[in-house]
């Protein structure tokens, strides 16, 4: 039961987090494709994916050399930093304190920047476009890789976490290919809120395990932590919501 809860929550967290990252990467790849065509966009994206695979293949075996106890502590702290960062941002966005992330605006900004670059450096425009696509896939992909490694390390959950991440990436790539425009309707803040809650819950669990805490209910305690973070996060968003509050830049 506990193992099932752990597997399910790791897979769901990896899926939702990867969905957010994949949408952000797709927005830039689509902007590149719109300005310079699919050739540089696809070339950059594939090069980024290949470098990601190399990073995973090179660093993956090194993790086995680190003692489990230390790995749990390190990964737990990183998950806490990562998850709480997302949760804080999602709460502030939900409360209207900072503006929501707008994929349509990100697409427009990226397209305008690429057009300006293409105008100034016409001869190198395709190369610059491919580089933009490469950077987007690499940077967003690194976040996906970190989440998958953090959720799976030491518990043999690499397959379910990778499957969740891969499913999200394929889903976004497929939808992007069909609609050929940014996926602006994805409720990014809700997803970030959910993922922040899950990663923070995993972070508490792993850090505690690394410190030698025997959590009551073992793996099932993650569900309780997630419920607590969700309740506190929603309460914080409700308290921070102020009708007249102006958003921070």
């Amino acid at each position: 039961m506990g193992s099932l809860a752990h597997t399910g929550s790791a897979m769901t967290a990896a899926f939702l987090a990867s969905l957010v990252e994949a949408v952000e990467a797709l927005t830039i790849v689509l902007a590149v494709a719109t300005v310079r065509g699919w050739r540089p966009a696809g070339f950059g994206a594939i090069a980024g994916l290949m470098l990601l695979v190399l990073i995973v293949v090179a660093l993956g075996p090194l993790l086995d050399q680190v003692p489990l106890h230390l790995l749990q502590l390190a990964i737990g702290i990183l998950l806490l930093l990562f998850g709480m960062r997302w949760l804080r941002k999602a709460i502030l966005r939900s409360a209207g304190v900072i503006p929501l992330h707008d994929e349509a605006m990100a697409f427009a900004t990226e397209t305008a920047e690429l057009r300006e670059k293409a105008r100034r450096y016409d001869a190198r425009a395709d190369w610059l476009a491919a580089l933009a696509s490469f950077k987007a896939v690499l940077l967003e992909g690194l976040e996906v890789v970190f989440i998958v490694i953090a959720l799976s390390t030491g518990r043999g959950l690499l397959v379910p976490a990778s499957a969740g991440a891969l499913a999200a990436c394929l889903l976004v790539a497929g939808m992007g290919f069909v609609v050929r425009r940014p996926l602006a309707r994805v409720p990014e803040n809700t997803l970030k809120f959910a993922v922040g809650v899950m990663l923070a819950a995993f972070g508490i669990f792993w850090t505690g395990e690394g410190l030698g805490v025997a959590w009551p209910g073992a793996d099932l305690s993650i569900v309780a932590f997630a419920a607590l973070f969700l309740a506190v996060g929603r309460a914080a968003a409700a308290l921070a919501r102020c009708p007249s509050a102006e958003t921070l830049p």
Partner: protein
Amino acid sequence: MSTVGAVLRELAGLFVEDGSLALEIVAVVVLAGISAALIPDVPLAAGAILLFGCLGVLLANVGCSRALARIKQREATFKS
């Protein structure tokens, strides 16, 4: 070179966006670690410090961000 710099900045930004939040989380983990070392017979004490400390840090940080937004709003109103 700028790509390498961007990757490194993005890597750091993965974990640290608001420096004070990151520092407070690390402080809570250190406190929990000290508790686990000093009172190993009650390991749940470290767990409680970790869990409720992080929840407290989150609430305090959101409260501070909201207060900052209000101050900026008042300053903008005053200037205009």
